[in-house]
Structures are given as structure tokens and as C-alpha cells.
């Protein structure tokens, strides 16, 4: 079994009036099936309200299924007894850098998680140091978090998750509020964790450019998985993506327009480097 497996996963948000009668039910996840292998870098796309965040919260057992089953590293998240282990296995980083830092010193913030699960003190400090080094924030260990930029705060949040030594990290739009440098640093950190430490990464994003280095892309719509494949496969299906309120990377769009205008460019261009190579080849 892979690190994450969902079968017929359903989640309903039920709204009740003041007397407790059901007012409305909205289905956020609708019989979703999904498999993620250990060590993969997965990008999840989908318009606002497509169910991405609801799915993310299941992987961390913040929400539990209404129906169906979700296993994280072989453990059923619906089983109360598994909840703590699931949360150790699957860490979560949210969108707003200001909402997830709690301590007044960076290293204490990172230490919070391992301390909470009873890691011995010496080991806590080892983990804190390693985690901060991995995200490139070691020299800020004694800083106050409010002196950091948005991107730096997000990297501290990632370090906090890393200190739990999870097998999998879910990042729910971690770059939505960041400036260009912050965005680049956070994505680079996520990639490094995946490539060098083998941590499974689930990246939820609205930026198509952040998806191109993923192993696989999942596209969600109305609580279902409607497309999956490599970034190249997914971004070759422009019309379908538009239908789901998504897009393609700008360079793919430009290559497409140039091709239409008569330049014989190869298909599947996603990055600037690829487009430059193709154009240089054409010229030679």
C-alpha cells in the first residue's frame, strides 16, 4: 500500500440551524479514489471550492471521512487510535504564515511539535537544528518570528513540521501570500525535502508554474479526481484545464501561440529553459 490511499472517500459539511435541524448538506469530497506512493512529489490543482483543502485536512486527520476510507501509511484515519500517529506521519503547512507560528522565538516554535509528543530534550534540540538547517533558517534560530518575512515564516513552519520527522508533508497553498523571493524559496525547500530526504510532498497550489517539477499532478473538481498524470501530460490538455477554471504555465501558453503562428516548436514545453532551447534549436 502507498503512503496515502483513498477509497470511495466522501466528506459532507452539514449545516444546522439553531435547533440542530439539518439546514443544508454540501458534499466536499465525492467518492474520491486516490493513491500516492512514498517519496512522490504530488501537486494538487483545482478551483476554489473543488475540495482540495478538505482532502488535505483528511490526510492530517483534522477531518475524518463521512463515508469511505483514507489510509495514511497504512493506518485508517477514521480510527481514533490512529489519529496521533497519523499526525506524526503527515505534517501540514497552511496558507497564512501568520497563523501557524506560536512561540516567540524561532527555535522554540520548531521545538513545539517534538516536545508535545515527548521526544527527549537532547533529541529535540538535534531535531530543531537539523530542521532549521534543512530549510535554510538556522541562522535565524534565536530570532523573533515577527522579524521574519512571509517566506521565512513559511520555512519556519515547514521546519516545525520536519522536526516531527514525518513521512509526508501536505502544503496547502503555502505561497499564496508570499512575494516572488518567498515563493521561490518555499517551493525550492519543498523540492529539496522530496529529492534529498525522500519526504512525500503533497503541494496544493493555484500557481501553474509551481507544478512543473512534480512527479504527478492531480486535478480536482466537485470533490472528485478528474485528471491525473505527469505535469507534461496534464498541461497538454489545455481546454480541459480551462473547463476546470485552471490554466497552464505562461511558457506553455507562449509556445502554443508561437506554434499557431507557424513556428515548428516541439510539444510539451513547460519552462523557460525548454522554450529557450527549442527556439535556439530552430534558429540553428
Amino acid at each position, binding site marked *: 500500500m502507498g503512503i496515502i490511499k483513498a477509497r470511495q472517500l466522501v466528506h459532507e459539511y452539514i449545516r444546522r440551524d439553531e435547533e440542530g435541524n439539518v439546514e443544508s448538506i454540501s458534499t466536499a469530497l465525492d467518492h474520491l479514489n486516490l493513491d500516492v506512493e512514498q517519496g512522490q512529489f504530488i501537486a494538487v490543482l*483545482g*478551483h*476554489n*471550492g473543488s475540495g482540495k483543502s478538505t482532502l488535505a485536512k483528511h490526510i492530517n486527520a483534522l477531518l475524518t471521512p463521512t463515508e469511505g476510507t483514507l489510509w495514511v501509511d497504512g493506518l485508517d484515519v477514521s480510527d481514533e487510535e490512529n489519529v496521533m500517529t497519523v499526525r506524526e506521519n503527515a505534517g501540514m503547512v497552511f*496558507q497564512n504564515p501568520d497563523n501557524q507560528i506560536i512561540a516567540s522565538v524561532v527555535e522554540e516554535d520548531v521545538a513545539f511539535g517534538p516536545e508535545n509528543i515527548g521526544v527527549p530534550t537532547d533529541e529535540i534540540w538535534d531535531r530543531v537544528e537539523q530542521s532549521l538547517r534543512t530549510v535554510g533558517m538556522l541562522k535565524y534560530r534565536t530570532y523573533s518570528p515577527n522579524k521574519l*518575512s*512571509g*517566506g521565512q515564516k513559511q520555512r519556519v513552519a515547514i521546519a516545525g513540521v520536519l522536526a516531527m520527522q514525518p513521512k509526508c508533508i501536505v502544503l496547502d*497553498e503555502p505561497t*499564496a*501570500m*508570499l*512575494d*516572488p*523571493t*518567498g*515563493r*521561490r524559496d518555499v517551493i525550492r525547500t519543498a523540492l529539496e525535502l522530496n529529492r534529498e530526504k525522500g519526504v512525500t510532498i503533497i503541494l496544493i497550489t*493555484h500557481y*501553474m*508554474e509551481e507544478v512543473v517539477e512534480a512527479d504527478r499532478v492531480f486535478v480536482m473538481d466537485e470533490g472528485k479526481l478528474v485528471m491525473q498524470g505527469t505535469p507534461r501530460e496534464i498541461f497538454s490538455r489545455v481546454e480541459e484545464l*480551462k473547463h476546470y*477554471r*485552471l*490554466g497552464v504555465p*505562461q*511558457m506553455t*501558453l*507562449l509556445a502554443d*501561440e*508561437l506554434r499557431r*503562428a507557424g*513556428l515548428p516548436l516541439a510539444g510539451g514545453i513547460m519552462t*523557460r529553459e525548454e*522554450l*529557450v532551447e527549442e*527556439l*535556439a534549436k*530552430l*534558429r540553428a
Partner: protein
Amino acid sequence: MSIILDKVNYIYSPGTAYQVQALNDINLEIRDGQFIGVIGHTGSGKSTLIQHLNGLVKATSGNIYFNGEDIYAEDFDLKGLRTRVGLVFQYPEHQLFETTIFDDVCFGPKNQGLSKEKAGLRAFEALRSVGLSEEVYYHSPFELSGGQKRRVAIAGVLAMKPEVLILDEPTAGLDPAGRDEILRLLRELHRERGITVILVSHSMEDVADYVERIIVMNQGSVMLDDIPREVFLHYRELEAVGLAAPQVTYLMHELRERGLAVDTRATTLAEAKDTILKAFV
């Protein structure tokens, strides 16, 4: 008609150990009917700057003139200024609070002292202009998608009929289609109603595509202030302060290095396409 900032300084917590000079001798003229982008890394002073434009924050020193009137003069109608210069904060949908969309949009004009009927008319007009269909006007704003909620929040400011509309990262967290919808809405408001639009953004591509003038903030000062293609020629300096140029700018420079005779000033997709095609003729 314009907003003029004359030697504006703003210091947070002056006289304490936490003293920070957030704005440093800012001189700017925001002319009527412009579509302006403000960029800068986190903490560069962008938000402090825009909060000065509608009098929400008072400069430590310096003057601000709205249509020639000193906004710090004793007889100046500061409350009126806040409706003439509408400010849409980051994640404005978090500030929706009424039970229906319609009531939420009425809140601003009612607060301006308009009668219920007049406020209602304003709300209708504003909701229509942001492209929300009438069938949802009496629904709860919380039933809408992220992009729709944000449009309700923008309608709430538009209902006050501002002459200047300032938006702090209006597309953050929206899906690509939602992003396009909001930006196109702003372009329409700007073109058809002549509203001055000031867009604070972290997306260099959005700024390159939509605005006619970019103000780059760095450490509380105006670092660059020019048309997009000129600003992005300074892409190395922008990178040094945590910003970047649009993808297209980098592409142009890389193609140049490979010997293609493209115009390195191209910043939008359409410009890139034109100049690349020309290089192959």
C-alpha cells in the same frame, strides 16, 4: 484631480526601541484615471503607503493633497475621503458579515448617510458591475466561492462610488480563472468608469499585463516609478530587493544571450510573441 504626497514620512512606535521608519520621504503624484501597480517585498512599506492615501494612517511628517486640498487641514472632510478613496484589504471576504450579500454591500453607502432606498440602488449597481447574478443577491455571502466572495467585498467598496480604488493583493488565493475575472473587472472599472485603480500585487505577470505605471517600494522609499517595460529592465535590482521580473523578461534576456534579436523590453505574452516572431522572419 490627483493625490499628491509631499515628503511623507511615517515612523512606527517613534521614540521607543521598536522605532521603524516605514515610509521615508515619499514624493508621489497619483493622477486621475491611472491604473497603477505597487510592488515591493513583504515589509517594504506598500501597505503603509496605501493606508496613507485614504487617511487611515496619518503621516509623521509631510503633506498629502487630495484634489489640491490638504487632507491634514482641520476643516478637511477625512470621513468623506475614506469613501472617495476606497480601500479593499487583503482577503476582504473575511470582513463580510451581513446575512445577505445585498445587505453586506448596502453597509457602506448606508454608513455614508444615504437613505435605505438610495443605498439599495447603489448596492444593485455595484453588484451588477462586479458580475454577480441577481439570483444570489439575497443568499448568504458564505455560500459563495472564494472568487465570488471577493467580488462581493469589492462591490461593497464600489457601492460608495469611490474615485480611487485601492486593492491590496486582490487575487491572492484565487484559482487562475478567479484571478483573471478579478483583474478583468478592475480593467473594466478603470476603462469604462475612469476610476483610478491602485493594485498592490506580488505577481509580476499580473502587474505587467494590466497596469500602466509601476511604483516599486523598498525599505520605505520609492525605488522605481515608471511604465512596466522600463521598470522591468531593472530586473537585477528588483531581484536584489526580493522581487523579480515577469517570466517573459527573463525569457527575452536568455534568448538574447543565445543570439536571437528579440526586444528585451517585452513584458507581456503578446509582446513576447511579436518580438520572437519578428526575430525569425
